């Protein structure tokens, strides 16, 4: 029963278009609902929560929340979910502690799977408990809101752009907490975002929405590397590479990360050998050489094969999809270079990676 995942069939007329979704999502991990502003992401989340009433069916890990066929529609307060709104919506008339208790005291003690201490520790809000909400910073409010949602021990956590209202410093402050949620909780999370960076860091799975329609749905790494999706046109187009620490080079203070396509060296990280590490490689940081012999300061040079071409945002540029031992890479180069190098599908090349970002 618990492996049934999340099944969503929704049809909801909105102001500019009709939101239509028929999705089968994994019942664990983080699934990002991704798309531009006004694409229906938040509306879809509200449908799952019962805050909007679509036509259709909502089933979460075997539990039916809505089924028009059988006339079932659970009101929001009877759905075991947690919801984190875009702006932290704490109750202004209650202290931080009372805000946290508001949902928790409404569920039976036997159903409390997330303990008070665990939630308070996970989000680092112990020192805020006896304060009023007005004195909190934006980041603190959002952490309290997340803890408040967790304390209802939800079977599904819905997060509507929880970082959107925060400046980039606050974002960096909260992201590690969200990564811990992902790593330490078994609760599946639906995470609305329009930030490719957040999605790359947090999501295992993603749903791409545009004008109320599902454009694509699948594992994040797979979707990010596709040339036919609007993601590729983004200035920050990037791929994810899952690697494992294979060793350290103490002389040069480098860490070697291995994946089927080869080894990538990064500046020395405090990671044990064997530990998994996810890298984000932006298309703009990958260039292409025809041979591996040319001398260059770039450390990471991987043998790869050209598998396809796509458009980039600027007409002077194009995207080249490469295959490095089965792992897709994207390189954004000028169309001029593409002509001069006579790139074509199947051509063996060397991918020169100028920089990578270690995500988790």
């Amino acid at each position, binding site marked *: 029963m618990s492996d049934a995942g999340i099944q969503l069939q929704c049809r909801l007329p909105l102001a500019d278009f009709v939101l239509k979704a028929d999705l089968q999502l994994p019942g664990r991990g983080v699934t990002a609902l991704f798309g531009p502003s006004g694409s229906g992401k938040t509306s879809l989340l509200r449908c799952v*929560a*019962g*805050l909007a009433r679509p036509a259709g069916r909502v089933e979460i890990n075997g539990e039916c929340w809505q089924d028009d066929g059988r006339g079932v529609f659970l*009101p*929001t*307060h*009877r759905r075991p*979910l*947690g*919801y984190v*709104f875009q702006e932290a*919506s704490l*109750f*202004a*008339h209650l202290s931080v502690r009372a805000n946290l208790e*508001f*949902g928790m005291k*409404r*569920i039976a003690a036997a159903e409390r799977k997330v303990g008070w201490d665990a939630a308070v520790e996970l989000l680092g809000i112990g020192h805020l408990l006896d304060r*009023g*909400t*007005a004195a909190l910073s934006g980041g603190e409010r959002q952490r309290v809101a997340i803890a*408040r*949602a967790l304390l*209802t021990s939800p079977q599904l956590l*819905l997060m509507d752009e929880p970082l959107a209202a925060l400046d980039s410093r606050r974002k960096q402050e909260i992201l590690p907490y969200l990564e811990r949620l992902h790593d330490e909780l078994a609760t599946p999370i639906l995470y609305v975002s329009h930030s490719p960076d957040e999605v790359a860091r947090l999501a295992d799975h993603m749903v791409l929405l545009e004008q109320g329609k599902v454009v694509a749905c699948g594992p994040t790494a797979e979707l990010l590397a596709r040339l036919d999706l609007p993601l590729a046109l983004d200035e920050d187009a990037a791929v994810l590479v899952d690697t494992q620490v294979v060793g350290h080079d103490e002389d040069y203070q480098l860490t070697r990360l291995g994946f089927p396509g080869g080894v990538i060296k990064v500046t020395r990280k405090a990671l044990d050998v064997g530990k998994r590490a996810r890298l984000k490689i932006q298309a703009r940081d990958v260039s292409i050489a025809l041979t591996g012999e040319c001398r260059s300061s770039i450390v990471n040079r991987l043998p790869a094969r050209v598998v396809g071409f796509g458009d980039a945002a600027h007409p002077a540029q194009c995207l080249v999809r490469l295959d490095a031992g089965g792992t897709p890479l994207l390189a954004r180069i000028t169309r001029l270079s593409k002509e001069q190098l006579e790139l074509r599908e199947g051509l063996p090349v060397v991918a020169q990676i100028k920089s990578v970002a270690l995500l988790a």
Partner: protein
Amino acid sequence: MELTPEDWSAVRLTLELSTLVTVLLLIIGTPIAWWLARTRSRLRGVIGAVVSLPIVLPPTVLGFYLLVLMGPQGAVGRFTEALGLGRLPFTFTGLVVASIIYSLPFVVQPIQNAFMAMGDRPLEVAATLRASPLATFFTVTLPLARPGFITAAILGFAHTVGEFGVVLMIGGNIPDKTRVISMQIYNHVEAMEYGQAHGLAAGLLAFSFIVLLGLYAVGGRNALGGSR
């Protein structure tokens, strides 16, 4: 300028009337304000206008129609007689009913504004935290709308204390039953007892000033975010 026993009786009656009317208005006005704040019904405009009528209507007009309605030929009059309650005009009960209608907009509007200013979000948040609609009303809506309720209670009370035209039309001038302060002032002036009139009038003036002062204090706190 000493207040006579008749004056004190009028003061006591006025306070009794205003307190009772305020309590009843908060009970009656809250669901009306809730409905007006949240409905998408087309009737919203009509009901809103009806509730607000006493703000613009001369009290004598309102009092006249109430007198007709509650009289022996009126629909309400026949109804109350059929119930064995007798007729309402020239009774304290009649004054209560009339005052409720007369002061209704002064109670409904502040509460309605507080509900509207709050928006849907706190209610949605409460629902995602497993609170039923009823629990949400008592644990979220009421506390968040508290400044609106305080304003409503003060305005409703003060407005009832100050009414004259409606009382004149519906209640008359019966000692211990319908003779409120504003009536008594009128009696003193009629009798050329200016000293007596001063005693009561100055009291009402001071009372009104203090009420408004309190109101602005509440409003000021509200403007600062409404949080404690």
